[in-house]
Each structure stands twice: as structure tokens, then as C-alpha cells.
């Protein structure tokens, strides 16, 4: 059971947020010129770079006749955690994260549009301070949008945990590293908030069934909140690169 210390008696979390507040989100699209799409995303102190290449001709061995091949690679920088740790790219954790990333993104990418092609998504965690997976999914979504690859909707991931205040369960959204380390349950959800579809759901510990719904709905609300913020950034990014000479018709 998570300690009661995750919430102060005034209802504030360790870093001063309220239970339903996200960490600060800052992001930028098109940070590189070499890949087709790229994005940099900060959620609190978790910092992630994502780059998307493609769609391009798939390698013959991988090529599929009816859909695109999506290739994900998640890696953590040596300096991303408190203690420096050399993480070879193929280590178990990164491989698992890559698979999870792929699963969440495949739910949204319109794979049927690009037979015999391949999309490469590279995610590098520069600093991990809780929710590295979520930030990676969100950054990858932005990079896909930047690359102009058709997706059904934003794929947003968010975590939620459960704390206790005065004996009442109080779910916490967007869990930081300190809160993760406190040993409570961490529920990770990757979803498309505009449709409500869930692409991936994962839980770190056991959680009593009675509380699952409240924690899940808090995580889903977190996804919605993040989508609003990211959508705004995408629109600003579009506007920034807009020139009058483009011929657009609007209704």
C-alpha cells in the first residue's frame, strides 16, 4: 500500500501539485531536419526526443504486402537517471519498452495506407523522472504528426497512482519518479482520448478491484488534459510555418 505521505494534509503532493494536476509540459515539433518528423517533449523533468523516418521502402525481408512495417526503438541515455548507467540498446527493459511503444502507436497509425513501406520511430529518453514511457508515447505521436503520417487520433499515454487522504482513496495523475519510488501502484494507459480507445494498459502492482475504476478514469482524464495541451502546440507549430503563398481553401 502506498504510504499516506504522497498527499499532505493540505491535499498537496510532494512536488506541490494537486492530485489532478499534470506536471509542466513543454514541447517542440520539428527539432531536427534530417528525419521526416521529430519532436522534443518535457513532462516535468522527464525529457524525451523522438524522431520518425519514413514511410520509406521497407527492407525486402520485412516488407508486408498489405500494410506498413512499424519499427520502434526506445533507448535511455546513459545520463538519464540519477546514477549513470550504461544501457546497451538491446537490453531487456528497452526491448520491452520498444514493444509497448509499438503496440500503442500501431493502434493509431493507418497502416493499411502504405503497403511495402516502413516507418522507423526512434525515442531517446534524455532524463527520466517518472513516466518515461508516457512521455515517449506522447513525443512519438508528435513526431508522427510532424512527419505527416496519417493517424486516427492522438495517442496519449498517462499514468495514475493511488494515494490515501483521510482514509479516502485519491487517485494521482501523472506520477513523478518520487511517487513511483514510494512503492504505490502505477497504472499506465495509452489511449486515444478523442475516441476513448485504449491501446495499452499496464499496472505495476496489485490494486484492489474497487479502486481500479477511479484510478483508470483519473489516468484517462490525464490523457485528455495532455491531448489538449499537445493539440495547442501542434496548431501553433502549423501556424508558425504558414506562408500566404500556400493555397488552401476553407469552408
Amino acid at each position, binding site marked *: 500500500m502506498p504510504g499516506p505521505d504522497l498527499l499532505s494534509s493540505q491535499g498537496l503532493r510532494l512536488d506541490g501539485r494537486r492530485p489532478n494536476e499534470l506536471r509542466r509540459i513543454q514541447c517542440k515539433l520539428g527539432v531536427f*531536419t534530417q528525419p*521526416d*518528423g521529430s519532436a522534443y517533449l518535457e513532462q516535468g523533468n522527464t525529457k524525451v526526443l523522438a524522431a520518425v523516418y*519514413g*514511410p*520509406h*521502402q521497407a527492407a525486402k525481408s520485412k516488407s508486408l504486402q498489405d500494410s506498413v512495417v512499424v519499427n520502434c526503438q526506445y533507448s535511455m541515455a546513459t545520463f538519464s537517471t540519477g546514477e549513470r548507467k550504461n544501457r546497451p540498446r538491446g537490453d531487456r527493459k528497452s526491448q520491452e519498452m520498444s514493444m509497448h511503444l509499438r503496440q500503442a502507436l500501431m493502434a*493509431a497509425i*493507418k497502416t493499411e495506407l*502504405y*503497403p*511495402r*513501406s516502413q516507418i522507423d520511430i526512434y525515442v531517446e529518453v534524455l532524463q527520466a523522472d517518472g513516466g518515461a514511457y508516457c512521455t515517449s508515447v506522447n513525443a512519438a505521436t508528435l513526431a508522427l*504528426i*510532424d*512527419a*505527416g*503520417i*496519417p*493517424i*486516427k*487520433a*492522438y495517442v496519449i499515454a498517462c499514468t495514475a497512482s493511488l494515494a490515501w487522504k483521510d482514509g479516502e482513496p485519491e487517485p494521482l495523475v501523472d506520477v513523478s519518479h518520487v511517487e513511483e519510488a514510494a512503492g504505490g501502484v502505477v497504472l499506465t494507459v495509452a489511449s*486515444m482520448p*478523442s*475516441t476513448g480507445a485504449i491501446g495499452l494498459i499496464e499496472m505495476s502492482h496489485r490494486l484492489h478491484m474497487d479502486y481500479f475504476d477511479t484510478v483508470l478514469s483519473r489516468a484517462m482524464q490525464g490523457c485528455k488534459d495532455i491531448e489538449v495541451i499537445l*493539440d495547442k502546440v*501542434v*496548431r501553433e*507549430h*502549423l*501556424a*508558425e*510555418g*504558414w*506562408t*500566404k*503563398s*500556400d*493555397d*488552401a*481553401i*476553407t*469552408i
Partner: protein
Amino acid sequence: MTSHVKIRLASERVNHSVTTNNDLPRFYTPGEVVTGMEDFMRGHGTYAVDDSLKAAVAGVMQKVNKLICIRPRKNRYVGEIGDVIVGRVLEVQQRRWKVDTNSRLDSVLQLSAVNLPGGELRRRSAEDEQMMRKHLQEGDLISAEVQSVFSDGSLSLHTRSLKYGKLGQGILIKVFPSYIKRRKNHFHHLPCGISVIIGNNGYIWITPAGQTNVVEGDDDEMAAVELQTVSRSDRDTMARVRNCIMALAASKMMLDDTSIMFAYEESLKYDDVKDLLDPEAMLDVAFLTQHRINYVVEE
């Protein structure tokens, strides 16, 4: 070799935006409902769910009669017949070359779609097939035109014109294809004595004007052209043009002969070509160019 490398803090980076965002169109982002389904046709960048048409990419809407498309800010090159492209030969296969054209599938240049030495039209013999690598080999750059588009979206090219063919000495620049303005002519001889081919696929080729970019004839002649020395001043000018294009691209401006020429002229106030690598200078050039374009458009 020593050189000064300057690494800037993120906070000190230059914002390359030069545009004045007065009248912005309506933007759509993925998952957003564009319109109700009735009476509209689903185009690129959209998909249908239940009774509505939703955007699949982030961009602006284009409507042609009943066809609704969402065009993203940038994406891979989508070829159209007649487009001029610059590409790189990837592979030599049976009776055809595979060419990288920055599109989502590799393009094809059929042996039958090239002009072979000796000119005029003639049957491709077995000997020609064996000599393919002599003509174009892996890594060679070519300019070509889109002949047709296959059903899976890949492009078929041809170089059956004197304008097209293997490229000699010059500089290749890659920009996002959406920055290229569609024009009737993509081969330009700039007044500064430089030729550029602005490929529709976002590959831009800069070469000294004296060089005939199309090489026809026998191997010796080809080799002679390749070895021809380019003068120092020509190389300076090429580098300047290259930096100007990069400046415009960094500021997400549309590229055509006019904008490149304007940028070149504005850049002349920087004596040293390498000064143009400085982000502030790039922004300055892009800004002045935008200003001149606006002025021209208003007139």
C-alpha cells in the same frame, strides 16, 4: 583541421519564424471531425468513421468539388506525372534502376526510358542490358521526370530529354518537399552564374552554369567533364546559394527561383560565405527575402 564549433544553449537558439500570422487558415489535427459524411468524398489525409469525416494528419483542408483532402505541413514526396525530380541511383536491376526520390517507395527508371549513347530511338539490345552499370551506377545522381505513377504509389521515371540525365559536379541539398513551389520550370540559370535544379521531391542541385549537366556521349567525354576544374569564385557562389537555400528552408519559406535569387542578393551584405551559417544571419536573410516577396506580391 581546426574550426570553431559553437554549441548554443537551447534557450539561446534563434527562432527562425519570419511570417506574420495575420490571416491564418483553419487548421485540422488528427482525430478532428472535418465534416459530416454526406455528399463528400474522402481524400488524402482523411478517414471515415461512422457518419463523419475525420482528419488523419495535421494541416489545412483542400476541397476540389466534393473531394476533401487534408494536406499536412510536410510529408514524404508524393509524385505527380510531369514533376521534375533529382534522385540518387540505389540499385541496378534487370532492365531498370532503382532510384531514391525521397518518396515512400523507391522509384524505377526503366532501361527503356533513358536516352542511350548514339541518340535517337533504338531497340535495347542484350548488350545494352549488360552495359547498364556503365551508364548509371549505384550512387550516381540524376535528374529526371515522373513518367507515370504505379498503382502502389511508386514512381516510374524517364530521362528521355536532353534536360535530364546524370549529374556531374555540384552540390545536393535536401529539404522537405513541401517547401518546393510547383512551377512550370524547375531548371534555372541564376544571374550569378549558377544553375539550380529545384526537384519537386525536395532535392535541389546546384552546379556551375558552364557545366552541362546532361552528359551524353561516350565515356571519355563524361570523364573529361567530371574532371573539369570549377573556379574558386564559382565555388564561393555555389556555397552562398546553398547557404541561402538552407536559410530559407530553416525559416520554412517556399523555394523557387525568385526566392532563391532574392535571398542571394540579400546575402551579399555578408562578405564571407561562412557567416551565413550563423543562425542570426540566416534569419536576417530569410526575413529580408520574405519582405521583398511580400513587396512584389503587393505590387
